[in-house]
């Protein structure tokens, strides 16, 4: 079976982002970009499925501008068999992304689509669930373990209260949480080879989907900064201060 993995190019998680002074967004010029961390877990899961002979082919898909090619090259370096870039210069919302991914699923007929639980830029946490609903596939979000058994997956999910296990029959959409696996570090020869592999490119507006944003961004602002407080000498002084503040 084929496995589809969606990967997104985002501002690297180690970067302290800056809000643009005109309030229109976040400064992405000359900022280190990398693959969304949860998407690395998705790719690792797909590769493990292939190594366990559950999957036959791993297809990485990215939707974004030309530079998303870098992210697809990283996917090749981790072991993806093919890469598809859906090119657009505008930032698309999860609803539009899910519609485009549904089109790719229609063309490629995978049995499993794996997405990160959220992208660490927009933090919407929507695309996987939307894709699952659009396709009418089973949904397993926030996965921390996935066991494949006869056309189904016993999927352990991270919940607010602990863990829960559900059984989802294929085809299914999985969204990954960090503890699902440890993504492999690509080896140098694989990185070199990845540079030469062909990327299939389609224009986003060639799919006949309305990609116009539904939400109007009014402004983007930096949160109020917390001022540093005071250093106290010892536990007794701390308790005194907390009592003064009527917190204790």
């Amino acid at each position, binding site marked *: 079976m084929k496995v589809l993995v969606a990967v997104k190019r985002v501002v690297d998680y180690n970067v302290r982002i800056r809000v643009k002074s005109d309030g229109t967004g976040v400064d992405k010029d000359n900022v280190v970009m990398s693959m969304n961390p949860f998407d690395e877990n998705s790719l690792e899961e797909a590769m493990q499925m292939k190594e366990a002979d559950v999957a036959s082919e791993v297809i990485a898909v990215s939707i974004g501008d030309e530079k998303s090619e870098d992210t697809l090259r990283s996917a090749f370096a981790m072991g993806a068999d093919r890469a598809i870039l859906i090119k657009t210069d505008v930032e698309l919302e999860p609803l539009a992304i899910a519609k485009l991914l549904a089109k790719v699923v229609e063309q490629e007929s995978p049995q499993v689509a794996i997405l990160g639980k959220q992208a660490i830029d927009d933090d919407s946490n929507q695309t996987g669930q939307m894709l699952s609903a659009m396709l009418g596939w089973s949904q397993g979000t926030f996965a921390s373990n996935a066991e494949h058994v006869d056309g189904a997956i016993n999927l352990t999910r991270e919940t607010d209260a602990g863990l829960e296990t559900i059984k989802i029959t294929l085809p299914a959409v999985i969204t990954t949480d960090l503890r699902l696996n440890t993504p492999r570090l690509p080896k140098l020869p694989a990185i070199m080879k990845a540079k030469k592999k062909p990327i299939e490119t389609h224009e986003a507006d060639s799919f006949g989907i309305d990609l116009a944003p539904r939400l109007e961004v009014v402004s983007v602002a930096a949160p109020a900064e917390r001022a540093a407080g005071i250093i106290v000498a010892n536990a007794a002084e701390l*308790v005194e201060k907390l009592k003064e503040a009527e917190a204790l």
Partner: protein
Amino acid sequence: MSILVVAEHDNASLISGTLSTLAAAKIIGGDITVLVAGENAGSVVTEAQALEGVSKVLVADNAALADGLAENIGNLVSSIAGNYSHVLTPASNFGKNFMPRVAAKLDVMQVSDIVEVVSADTFVRPIYAGNALMTVKSNDTVKLITVRSTAFDAVEATGGSAAVEDLAFSDVFAGSSFISRDVTLSERPELGTAKIVVSGGRGVGSKENFAVIEGLAEKLNAAVGASRAAVDLGYAPNDCQVGQTGKVVAPEIYFAIAISGAIQHQAGMSESKIIVAINKDADAPIFNIADYGIVGDLFDVVPELMEVL
């Protein structure tokens, strides 16, 4: 305006995020209906009827709704969402799981994790783990919204006397089934809603040493939290994790013990009223946001604290 709030519960009682979600609904303003989807959840219905500001409680009772499976809750909510101007639910694992499905079915762009209601169509939501706040206006006819519970004060649990109406459900999704739940049991308050949170980080050193954190939490009747580093090293279970990849908390007092204060951790606790940092490293970034700091070894400071409390 008519607002539907999808309640989160465990078939026995409401989960507190529902009360904060109602607070957001009240700010939007309008007639508020609460949906209780579950199985044999009579006590939850009684609780929902008594909530301040609720005019109607819809009850969908079906075994397929008992365990919060997203496909079934999503189908149910999609079937009635069109009757409302807004549909709100907590931005918890429950809400995040089903709401985007409703959005896909209705062809609506959901507004996730709001922290402020500016007006009936404009909301503020954190992006980049809270390092930026985005104000967005939704032009969809039905606005689908998940609410960050810590950003809104819960409504009163009493005072209401809402009418109850049954809602039929038969659109069961055959592809998914619930198997088991492994809930971390704790005598102490829930991390998301506790008045005091005591968190430990990498510097705690081991799973055994984490007992020091738990001891202080017990003394203060506080919830136990942990940084991602502490969770990854196996010192504490994952559902204790505070941060961008864990839970977002905003207690009255947050104790960050042996936590350096990485951006990812700050995203989960920087809205706390008072932050107390205890760390050996005087240069740890956590001191930049702490109200009170003690530079010292936690194994000296915490026992001292236990004595004077």
